[in-house]
């Protein structure tokens, strides 16, 4: 079983959802971003509280992040201008693995293609990475990545959306390994006041597609979750809760690594209070 799937299954064994934290490498600088990732993993564990993130989505800075809202854009723009690249990302992968969470890279496609798809897969596996999430790569265009991730034994996470047809849900889940990323709302990344109704419906439809195709995969929900209460709500129907913008905001607001740690503890409590556990 894949590293991602294993970690999500371990959370399920504790009757909770997994917490997946996104942070981009290079904001405010490479070292501070890695420290923030480690803090997101630790959460309140050292202070006797619950731990933090089970999985860290390590964001690769990209000049044209078409799926991201203003908060992530602002942070990533700084990293791009500083010349942060995949070598720095691989350092973050090692640090997250050492902190005890499962590292997975989140990247728009061009930086990977430029680095070289096979070389990326080899280097990521060597650094201890579980795989990659590719928000602008659909399985239809992913032949090179499917082959490279197979060869390196890496997970590959594709996205599904409320607008995905049933046929596309089936073909996408068949291409996924690790988990399926349910992008719960039609829109870009950013915090929202309420969790969209569309999220629960999308998870249910994705699970049907999983059942139809006979693959066994967890479904994790991203886009819009910002606090423990929302995390608890999503944990009521999903296998994992993905939080991005809310993790970046304390860094932009000057709360720094401690702000990230506090948020992670709040979210970690949330995923342990699932509002109505799934059957």
């Amino acid at each position, binding site marked *: 079983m894949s590293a991602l799937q294993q970690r999500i299954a371990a959370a399920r064994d504790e009757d909770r959802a997994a917490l997946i934290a996104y942070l981009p490498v290079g904001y405010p600088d490479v070292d501070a971003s890695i420290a923030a990732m480690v803090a997101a993993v630790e959460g309140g564990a050292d202070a006797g509280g619950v731990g933090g993130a089970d999985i860290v989505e390590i964001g690769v800075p*990209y000049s*044209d992040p078409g799926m991201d809202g203003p908060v992530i854009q602002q942070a990533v723009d700084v990293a791009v201008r500083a*010349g942060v690249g995949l070598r720095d990302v691989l350092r973050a992968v090692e640090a997250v693995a050492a902190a005890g969470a499962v590292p997975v890279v989140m990247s728009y496609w061009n930086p990977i293609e430029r680095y070289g798809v096979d070389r990326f897969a080899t280097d990521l596996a060597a650094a201890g990475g579980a795989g990659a999430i590719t928000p*602008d790569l659909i399985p239809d265009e992913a032949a090179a990545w499917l082959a490279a991730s197979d060869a390196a034994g890496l997970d590959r996470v*594709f996205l599904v*959306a409320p607008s*995905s047809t049933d046929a*596309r849900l089936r073909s996408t889940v068949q291409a996924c390994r690790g988990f399926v990323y349910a992008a719960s709302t*039609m829109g870009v990344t950013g915090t929202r006041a309420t969790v969209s109704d569309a999220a629960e419906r999308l998870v249910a439809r994705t699970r049907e597609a999983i059942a139809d195709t006979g693959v066994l995969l967890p479904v994790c929900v991203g886009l819009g979750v910002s606090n423990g209460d929302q995390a608890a709500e999503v944990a009521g129907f999903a296998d994992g809760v993905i939080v991005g913008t809310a993790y970046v905001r304390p860094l932009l607001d000057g709360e720094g690594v401690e702000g990230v740690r506090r948020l992670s503890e709040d979210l970690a409590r949330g995923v342990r209070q699932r509002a109505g556990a799934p059957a």
Partner: protein
Amino acid sequence: MTTSAVSPPEPRLAPAAPAWPDATGHFGIFGGRFVPEALIAALDELTAAYEAMKVDPAFVEEFARLQRDYTGRPSPVTEVPGFAEHCGGARVLLKREDLNHTGSHKINNVLGQALLTKRIGKSRVIAETGAGQHGVATATAAALMGLSCTVYMGEEDTRRQALNVARMRLLGAEVIPVTTGSRTLKDAINEAFRDWVTNVETTNYVFGTVAGPHPFPAMVRDFQRVIGDEAREQVLEREGRLPDAVLACVGGGSNAIGIFTAFVPDAGVRLIGLEAAGDGVETGRHAATITGGTPGVLHGARSYLLQDDNGQTIESHSISAGLDYPGVGPEHSHLHDIGRAEYRPVTDAEAMEAFALLCRTEGIIPAIESAHALAGVMRLGRELGPEALLLVNLSGRGDKDVETASRWFGLGDREEVDPGPGMDTDQQPTEGAVTNHEAVDGQDAGEQA
């Protein structure tokens, strides 16, 4: 290669169907769809609706009526002997897209996409714009067809092209200045995609060039190919033969694809795209994507692009806002790789020299974008000599560029105007040109141009 075609080809009864893209939008290794899954349903819907629409006689008739009665097609072909004296004596014909309603070829595409928007039952259109020409054309079509319209434009471009911002607002469009990234066309495209993914239920994205995810490169080409279909017939009729070469400027590449497509099967006709070389490709400050770029993925498709070792898009530079784009359409990338088309760089200085020359010799003020193609024909004419017959797409008129040109040539500062650098083709732009170039580029466009 240096002489005209030996025997005149037969006029074709119907325009030749392009050999690409494949069913999933690939032009060789280029094109495709590199977008979030959330947009796939909308792209599929557009593809299906477009495929149905283009063979629907009611649409074909309506589109032809708008092109004739609203745009003013067919646009004429004008021979320019005065200008051609500076082109090694070759004969030069201009396809006059500058005479279209709204002043450029952009209207050809937006009328098609606006009709498609109505057909799929959406009430709002969004568009990106660089120089403002596509934004103005989209706002025009939206006004004509009763659609609400939002145009994204880089903040720097809204300053450089204030006249077009005012035009769009007069036409009832909302213009949103984009303040992210480099604040130019590429960031306007990013913002338009973000709007689209959020509002896709009600909104259609009217893409302005032959780039972006499938079906945009093929669809925009099909709406623009009227330029070459007309021009091929017009040249055959007046000359009894095909031109030796067809030239057009290339930013994203819609006017070039528009005039190339009809000629692609004519193996004896050279197809030459002129890219904006800014200060010179060797300086790194340019927008010559095929000349100076590498294959990669940007804005939803694989194509040549300007990128660094980390795969980050490099900001482009050109005096022409409409060519100031670090990507290029996938079909151009393919035509380059298979050797069917050639792509050559033209610097700001060369383009402005040709700009001035056309003004003075022919009484036609071209868009600075189109002036890159004119500079290309000056060079090619000297290479091929007096036997050559050369067709240039004059993709737009220069009204929008008067301020930029005045600054470049220092016209605002002088009582008496010099005969102008364009009058002597061997002469580099004179003192005013160089210093004023600094002024244009260094002022508000320095980050961005």
